């Protein structure tokens, strides 16, 4: 089945220790998104790629970076995680901008 896969599902890191979250898709969608979702809040868009074009949200901290080496994979790098970065990180894909977004299962990040 075509799908959006995120690894790992749970990630524990230490304050300031870099961490990388991964997302892969078999939908062959052009657009890939990274969202941060904290408890009882709506998903907040961090950035998205349209093909190789990277679009950063104005309020996304510099601590967050992303890479998309090919159509199928996208990575979220958190260079120096703080306690406030503990959250669920959701990857989503869509065929085009404004089309339906399909979410992966998410990675729950804990920062100790």
């Amino acid at each position, binding site marked *: 089945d075509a799908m959006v896969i995120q690894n790992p599902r749970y990630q524990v890191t230490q304050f300031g220790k870099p961490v990388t979250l991964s997302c892969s898709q078999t939908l062959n969608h052009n657009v890939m998104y990274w969202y941060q979702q904290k408890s*009882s*809040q709506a*998903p907040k868009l961090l950035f*998205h790629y349209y093909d190789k074009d990277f679009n950063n949200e104005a309020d996304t901290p510099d601590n967050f970076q992303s890479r998309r080496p090919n159509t199928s994979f996208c990575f979220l790098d958190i260079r120096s995680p703080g306690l406030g970065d503990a959250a669920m990180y*959701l990857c989503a894909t869509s065929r085009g*901008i404004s089309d*339906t*977004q399909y979410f992966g299962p998410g990675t729950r990040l804990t920062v100790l």
Partner: protein
Amino acid sequence: QQPVQSPQAVILREGEDAVINCSSSKALYSVHWYRQKHGEAPVFLMILLKGGEQKGHDKISASFNEKKQQSSLYLTASQLSYSGTYFCGTTTPPGMTTDSWGKLQFGAGTQVVVTP
């Protein structure tokens, strides 16, 4: 700008109906509805693209009033499986601003609890 959802929460008995509203201060291009269960990813329910469009998914349906810049989600004869948080996501028309084109702005969510 984030759309406004109401109510914030609703408790239903199995078989009862509910309406969730989503309104925006900006002109809308599309409205997307998602349901998220605790600890899981949002699951797509439906997308509405044209003013006046109505769609249905099982006994969950939605309408989009483009002029009023709002959408409503209707839960009919609710089932236990309908419990979760419902989010609307809205997009603005192309040409409004390049910054916001195509990006989903999620509402704060409506928590729905269906009890036996």
